[in-house]
Structure formats: C-alpha cells, structure tokens
C-alpha cells in the first residue's frame, strides 16, 4: 500500500445496516458521502453486519483489531460514550487502550459521540479523544463536560443533527383484505362437468366414511413405521476439517459396538412392518367390489 492510497483509505467504525438503529443509519450516511467522494472505505461494525469487518471494541481483542485495521488510514468513528467511563477492570482498560491506539494510528480522525450518559473519566478522554482531530458531541453540555475532563476545546464541535435518535416510521394504511371464500354448494351428483366444490364435497364425504371404516383397523398401524427412516449412524462429516476427522475416527473406533445395534433395530423394524402388512385388510377400492391391492409393490407393467 503506497502512502498515496493509504491517504485515500478511510476506516469507518460504527453500528451498521441491516441493524435498523439510528447509529447504523448515520454510519451508512457517512459511508455514502465518502463513496461519493471516491474514497476507498473499509467499514468496521461492532457486530457482524453489512460492514467489511467487525470488532467489538468493548473487548481487548476488538480494540486491538480496530487498531490493526486502521493502520495509517483516516478514521471516522461513532463510539458509545460508555467507553469514556471510569468503571471497569483490566479487561475494559485494555480494550480502551486498543481504541486509543487505533485513534493515534490514524492519519486523521473524527469521532462522533452520542449523548454522554455518565461522567467521563479524564484519563480516557485524553487517551482516546486526545488523539482525534475532531470530536463531535451531542450538545453544548457534553462539550463542556469533555472540556472539563481535559479535552482541547478547539477539537470540539456540536452535531448539527441528532443522528442518535431513531427516525419514527408512521404506520401506513393497510390494503383491502381478500374476499372471503364462497361456501360450498350442495351438489350430490358427480359427473364430468361437476364443479370443483361438488367434487371436493364428495371427497370429504368419502374421507369421512373412510375414517369411520378404518377406525380400529390394524392395517394403518404399519404406516408410521414405513415412514420412519431406517436407523443410520450420524454423518461423520463437518465443514471444519478437523471436526470431520475426529468424527470419522470416533465412528471407526465404536463401529464394533454401534453397527450390531443399528442392524438389530433395522431388522426389528422390517420384521414389524412385514408382520403388520401380512394382516388381512377390509377396505375395498372406492366404487369397486373387488378386493384392494394390499401390497405396495407395483402391478405388472403390461407394456413390459
């Protein structure tokens, strides 16, 4: 990367779409403006999003990652002002140090802050914001608090728009619902010109009769077993190569114990289906006096 291209590169940090937050919309607006200016942008968001990278700067790892991504590029960031608070142990302190490093590595840096919710600690105000060229705060009160915490007043400005406030989307008028379905006509004769409704009515009547006739019938008892797939060992694959290897190894080691159980369960299943299918069935085909074909094997194809 040459110095020239690095100067054109901008790292933008903040919440980002598709997260529907006010911060995400503001970051997107920044990105749009920079793209329109033909800048080379890299977006970093706290969580996985439409950004190119993600780094949760509340953790030391995230702070360090942001610092690494910034390199010598320009940084435009929207930070949660909680990062300036006094609370937290070694972990948060390391994270803040990482963020401070990111700010100081940048060739230029603008930081936008939403309204302060707690008194800022002078140490972190100076460490993080002290390296920025410009700090844009939510109000004059916040600016005063940061000045009191030791930040150079020349770097401070107040936001023109309350970007941290969620835009209100008014409820939109609904559209007409589809018309209700017509009720089924009372048709009892079924011919080639019968309506769909008449046919369906007959189907339902037949099904009701079928249900009554099948009550207590032993032939339906095998259906759940037939639909149940045979037992097989779990797949010994994984998108991660080493996990797949471990699974295959475990499967091989246990094959002597597992395979006989699988075979026995499947034999039992087959024997049960065959025993149930061998039972007599009393349901004739609709409109027919002949006994129904009781097996699922295909009749002989006369076409050969």
């Amino acid at each position, binding site marked *: 990367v040459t110095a020239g291209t690095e100067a054109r590169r901008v790292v933008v940090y903040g919440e980002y779409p598709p*997260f529907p937050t006010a911060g995400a919309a503001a970051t997107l607006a920044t990105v749009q403006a920079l793209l329109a200016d033909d800048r080379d942008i890299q977006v970093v968001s706290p969580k996985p999003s439409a950004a190119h990278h993600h780094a949760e700067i509340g953790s030391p790892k995230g702070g360090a990652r942001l610092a690494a991504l910034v390199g010598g590029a320009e940084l435009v960031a929207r930070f949660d002002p909680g990062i300036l608070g006094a609370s937290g142990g070694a972990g948060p302190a390391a994270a803040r140090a990482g963020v401070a490093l990111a700010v100081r590595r940048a060739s230029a840096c603008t930081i936008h802050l939403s309204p302060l919710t707690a008194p800022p600690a002078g140490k972190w105000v100076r460490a993080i914001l002290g390296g920025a060229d410009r700090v844009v705060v939510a109000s004059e009160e916040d600016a005063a608090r940061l000045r009191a915490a030791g930040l150079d007043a020349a770097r401070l400005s107040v936001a023109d728009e309350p970007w941290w406030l969620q835009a209100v989307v008014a409820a939109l008028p609904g*559209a007409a619902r589809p018309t209700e379905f017509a009720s089924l006509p009372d048709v009892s004769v079924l011919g080639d010109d019968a309506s769909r409704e008449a046919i369906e009515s007959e189907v339902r009547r037949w099904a009701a009769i079928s249900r009554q006739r099948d009550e207590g019938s032993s032939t339906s008892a095998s259906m759940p077993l037939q639909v149940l797939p045979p037992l097989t060992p779990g797949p010994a694959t994984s998108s991660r190569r080493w996990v797949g290897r471990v699974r295959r190894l475990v499967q091989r080691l246990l094959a002597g114990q597992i395979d006989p159980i699988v075979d026995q369960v499947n034999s039992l299943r087959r024997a049960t289906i065959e025993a149930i299918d061998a039972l007599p069935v009393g349901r004739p085909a609709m409109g027919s006096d002949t006994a129904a074909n009781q097996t699922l*094997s295909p009749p002989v*194809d006369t076409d050969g």
Partner: protein
Amino acid sequence: MGKGRIAFVTPRYGEEVVGGSEAVMREAAHGLAGRGWEVEILTTCARDHYTWANDYPAGDFSAADVTVRRFRTVRDRPYFAREALLRRVLAGAPVTPQEELIWLGGKFRVPDLFHHLVLHGRSFRGVVLSPYLLWTTLAGAAAVPERAIAIPCLHDEPYAYLSVVRPLLARSAQVWFLSEPEHALAHRLGPVAADHEAIGCGVAIPEGYDPEGFRARHGLGSRPFVLYAGRREGGKGWDDLLRGYVGAVGRLGIDLDLVSVGVGDGSGPPGAAGRVIDLGFLPYDELPNAFAAATAYIQPSRNESFSRTVMEAWLAGTPVIATGAGAVVAWHCERSGGGLTYRDDDELAECLALAVEAPGALEALAARGRSYVLTHYTWDTVLDRMEEALERLP
C-alpha cells in the same frame, strides 16, 4: 435508448439453481430486459443454499441480455450460536432484534454487494429484492430503501414474524406480492409500504408437450403416476406426502405411483419400494413433459407464496391436488375452480382414488386451471403489471 436501469438482487443465479424465488427473479429480469430495460442481476457466488459456499467466481459477465455481477459470500463463526438462535426462533421463544440479525447474518453475508448498492443503487430506477428471509434482501433494502422493490415471497411461518422483516415491508419503495393471501399475511405482520400490490408471477408457456417421450426416456412404462416437483424436504411437505401416499396405497390399493423430481432425497420408505420413483433434477425443458405425463400433480407444501408448479401442471392440462393447509394454493384452487384440496391423509387418499376412478371429472377441473393461468399469469400479463408499477417510481 432504453426504458431505464433496473437491478435484481437475488441470492443465487444460474441455470442449475433450484428455487421458486430465484426462478421468478431470473425470468422477470430477462423479461424486462426483453422489453427494453437495462437490467443488472446482483447475486452471490453461491450455488448451494445450505452451505452458501462460493462455488462460482466473483466478477461480472453477460447472460443473454442482462449483466450479472457476482459477489463473494462471507460466513462467520461461531456456528453453534446460530443454531441455538434458530431453535429459539422456531420454538417461538423471545429473540431480540439484534439476535435476529446475528442469526440471519450467520448464514452468509455479502458486504461487497451491499456496498455496490450503496455506491450505485441510486442509478437504478428500481432495485428488486427477493426473497424476504435472506441477508441479500434485508441488507440490500436497507442500502437503498427509496429504490427498493421487495418481492418478499412470504410464507406464514415463524420467520415471517421476526422483527427484522418489518422494515423490508414497511420502508421499501414498493412491495410486489405474488398472491392475495401473501398480501393479507403481510398486513397481519405489520405496516406495509403505501405502494404495494399483488402483482403475481409469470409462468412460461411451453411450445408443446411430449408425455410419451418423457415416459420412455425415464423408464416409466405405461403405469399411471402422480407427480411432485420441488425440493424433497420436510419444509415443503415431502414427508407429509410420503406418509399420505403410503397410507393411501396401503389402505385403498390405489394404482398410482408417486414420481418426484427436484433436489433432496426423493427415496420412499422401504415399504413403498418401486412405487416412489425419484427422477432427481430434470433439465428445465423436460419439466413440462413431466407435468403432461402425470395423472395428477400433488402440491403438499403449505409454505408457498405463489406455487409455479401448480400453474405449470394446469398449463399442461394436468389436475392439481393440493394441501388445503397452504393458504395460497387453496386460494388458487378456489379462485380458478381448477384444483382439489385435502385437509388430511384420508382426504388425500380419496383425491388420489378419484384421479384413478373418475379422471374425466378432474380433467374438467384442469381445463379451468389452464384457463386461469392463461388469464392471470402469463409473463406478458405480469410484466405489464411490473412496468406499470415501475412507472410509478420517481
């Protein structure tokens, strides 16, 4: 001078990509290009909708009259956290909007496509995005809401009630629904953009059918069969169909095989060996022949936002038997007077028996179905509606 620029954002694009939404987007894109629009298809490098791996190279190429731009997917870890979130979503347990988005982005993300839209989205008259539950759609609409045209392909399923879906329906410039039941569902979910309509979906009309050749090519002989075309997976009602079919054949002795085409495991249970026939994935131009050769077409899926296969069956003059649990297909059957719906396995069995024993009655229904498709869902008709909608955009 063309009519204007329009982009189609689809998660997958390619001849071998199977999926209703992808097919709608592909055909609409090429249809509008044929009418003088300058069309770009913005898609991922993925072919497999389980892994979302980058199977195709990234970059731009021309496909007939459109420009296709492929962007690489990014997949995050940890995977197990996403699975845990999925279980909570499906169980109806409380999930925060942030968790919803982490779950959604955990499948795949395409930051480069998003930034392409941020940079170029406003150069298009409209940016069409589909389907609703994929990152490309929800993030893409967030990039250019004032140009976004959502074709959500909503189903009444737990995912549709996630809060992340609401901005897509409420803030897009336009929403195009494929059917009135989908439209009604959207209103039950929350606010819908002021400019929306049930625009429908086009279905290509084959030049002819070759049912006998199809039977010969696939070794089906002269045995009658019912057909299912689509993904053979639980979410599409495949398991329900197998259970109902096995029950129907076992109890009523119905002399119909079950032939299925599509991706997924199409094998039947052991007890139905030889009766459940898996033809796998068929070439695009062979599908119409499958519909024409079938005694009836079965649609067991309740998760349909349009159901093109039902239309294709009707076009082929083949009766349709569909689960009544799916509001959209039941609506088509009701409105057209061209299909039968069943409410349980017993009614499915009787419908299958009817297809064997009173085929004349079902053929008359199929003729009404064909007339319904030709009236409402030819691509010419649907593209007219799409162009009228596009003209309303600023």
